[in-house]
């Protein structure tokens, strides 16, 4: 992966209708990391992901992904949407959703072939959802839906993963399955960016953190970033920090 840097951002600013969503962000992230993007609501976490993916026209600054313009490496990128952004009444079955992960590998007119179906079913097996492959996506619980979307990303066989709030409002089993798979992917050399708004478990889940509140508060490995000052700065007093024997406990409201 070139110089070992997965992501380089230089003076990125984004505004929507004159309102600044992100301001002057510069950071770099090495490859093969499980990266948490954290910050309070409205901090611009999803916006940062969208900017990195090149989905926001007219942003200012420079973004390099794997040393290149994002358009050159789109096939290597998998995206897992926030569950609320998807219409769960859409008439698709679980297996159809996972097959969408194979689309980047097909020609513009090509249809999924037998191997694609096998890869899709195998991905479903990895997230423990194989038995549900003929269900309509809306019939599943939140955690199950999240696992199906992760299976879609797995089927894509990407090198870079972007997940928008994968742990919000899901059951403990699903959360455990998902974090185990994310760690497994990291160990295979992939880099994963995970938007996360809950500060609990942050330290144990992520290798590096990007702490945001429109501006970059801190970026680096998890212990460094989770200093009390930084958290207070990012959450502007809406987080309570309790110091215990084994470090600190953060409660955000």
């Amino acid at each position, binding site marked *: 992966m070139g110089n070992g840097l997965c992501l380089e951002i230089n003076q990125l600013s984004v505004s929507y209708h004159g309102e600044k969503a992100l301001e002057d962000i510069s950071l770099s992230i090495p490859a093969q990391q499980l990266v948490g993007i954290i910050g309070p609501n409205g901090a611009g976490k999803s916006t940062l992901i969208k900017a990195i993916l090149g989905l926001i026209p007219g942003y200012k600054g420079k973004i390099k992904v794997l040393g290149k313009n994002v358009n050159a490496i789109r096939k290597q990128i998998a995206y897992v949407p926030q569950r609320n952004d998807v219409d769960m009444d859409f008439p*698709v079955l679980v297996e159809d959703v996972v097959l969408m992960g194979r689309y980047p590998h097909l020609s513009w007119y090509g249809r999924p072939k037998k191997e694609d179906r096998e890869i899709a079913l195998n991905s479903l097996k990895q997230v423990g959802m194989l038995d549900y492959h003929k269900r309509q996506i809306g019939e599943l619980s939140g955690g199950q839906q999240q696992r199906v979307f992760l299976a879609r990303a797995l089927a894509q066989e990407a090198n870079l993963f972007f997940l928008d709030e994968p742990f919000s409002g899901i059951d403990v089993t699903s959360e455990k399955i998902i974090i185990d798979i994310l760690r497994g992917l990291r160990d295979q050399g992939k880099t994963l960016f995970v938007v996360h708004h809950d500060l609990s478990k942050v330290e144990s889940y992520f290798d590096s953190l990007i702490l945001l509140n429109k501006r970059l508060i801190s970026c680096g490995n998890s212990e460094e970033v989770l200093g009390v000052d930084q958290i207070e700065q990012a959450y502007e007093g809406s987080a309570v920090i309790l110091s215990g024997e084994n470090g600190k406990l953060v409660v955000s409201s």
Partner: protein
Amino acid sequence: MDNLSFFFDALFQYKFLQNAMMAGVLVGIICGVVGCFIILRGMALMGDAISHAVLPGVVIAYMIGASFFIGAVITGVLTALAIGYVSQNSKIKHDSSIGIMFTAAFALGVVLITLNRGTGVDLWHILFGNVLAVSTTDLWMTIGIGIVVLTLIFLFYKQLVLSTFDPIMAQAIGLPTKLIHYILMLVLSLVTVASLNSVGIILVVAMLITPGATAYLLTDRLPVMMGLSAVFGSVSAIIGVYYSFIYDVATGASIVLVASIFFIIAFLLSPKHGIIVRWGRAKMADRNTNENTSI
């Protein structure tokens, strides 16, 4: 029964009735299939807008003797672009932008028609259709549009599905989602032209939305939904043309009424989503628990 045999006699005898039937069935199929995507993208209002916005193009084309097919596509797509431009470059919301632009285009069309009274452009026929005046040329044009539209949907099926279901992933893997949107608007203009004679501009949106919505209540798979929607659309056309011929009422409106009745039936009785079915099931469940507790 007399009515039915009278109708079939007429159908075999009169070319105009055969053409009407064919046109109705084709429009039912084309609108049914395209309509599924319009529904799933939440673009019912946009469908209404584009079909109305076709009017000035049709009138200008009549006036200068060009094909109204081209005129319709031009004003339809221009209106779609104008709607997008206004909502992206001001704080006007998308639905307001739609409301402003399509009524402007429609009003322009009405003014142009009234300026050219007596030149053979019949406002009533464009607005409400005149299925019994479908010529063989019109029929061929409808067939041509049908082939183009259905081929496009078949070829770009996966792009359409992904950009409808998960637009952000579609963009992330490099699909031109904006282009897809505007091609769909172009398709809407084409579909409106194809439907001009059978249902007319005002009621096209019903043929796009109602059969698709009926199918949506009955299945969880998009390919099945598209098939069912085409069936509902074309069966509504057949029954609609029949009643319109027997009772001598407006054909387009008659077709749309039949489609609406199908929708109401599905809304009440769909095995999974029908409200009467759900109500009945809830009652049964209640009774079962009551019996269990009383024993």
